[in-house]
């Protein structure tokens, strides 16, 4: 399954996009904009919330596929 997500680069002067994998994001990986090389990474305080949400999402997928 494709887990790659895309957001608009938060750099106001850039019109590029940042592609990231949320599962790698919670492991501490960072992802950069292909246009301006700006980098995003998950804050320590956000890790638990995002991890918890992704786990619930995986549970839901497992339920609907069974």
């Amino acid at each position, binding site marked *: 399954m494709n887990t790659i997500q895309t957001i608009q680069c938060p750099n106001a002067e850039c019109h590029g996009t940042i592609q990231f994998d949320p599962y790698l994001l919670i492991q501490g990986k960072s992802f950069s904009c292909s246009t301006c090389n700006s980098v995003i990474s998950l804050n320590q305080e956000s890790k638990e919330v995002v991890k918890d949400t*992704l786990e619930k*999402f995986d549970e839901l997928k497992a*339920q609907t596929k069974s």
Partner: protein
Amino acid sequence: MINLKAAGGSSGPESGFKGKGIDIASLIGGPLIAASEANAMMLNKQADFILSTCFKEDPITGNHAPIIVPISFKRSILIRDEETDQPKLDTGEYTIEIPIITLIPLNTLGVSSVDVDFEMEIVNQYESNSTNSSQHSSSRPKSVGKTPKLYGKISYDSKEAESLKQANRNMNRQKLKVNIHAQEIPLPDGMKTLLQLYTKSIIPNDKSNSSNS
């Protein structure tokens, strides 16, 4: 679970195989309706998940506001060094607040195909007068004529009968194969628009400024 009820005025599924047979429309429509209901159940479950984990409900107004998580954002910009009067790369660190829904690889799992496979022996054909239906829909043009309705019995699998040489036994068995295939389907346009709005509204806050405030 698929519940098939035979048409033709009889109450139980078994009794439909006797008499004038099973209405073919019901036989085909039954699995399709069941698949459609299963599809709706999956979509409702995903909608509930999105509302419960990606939004928080205001207990007073009942409105749902997105759950926001802070994310670190670093960007490098070229600035002029005041001492050397040369361009230099300056790295700024910011915090962006991002709705958690934009981090989740949402997809929609839906029923993509339903195959209904059976062999049917037509035992009866009725013609019903279709002009009676015009009383329900007065705006539609009245259709004149008669609508044929087919009734039949699901026949045995002839290939299987040959291989097993049990044709007489198989005459009393009916087979209806229903293959339902579910796969990931694209997100609905409304959901895509919502995600686009959220991702386009991400604005970085200077980390030094936000920590001071």
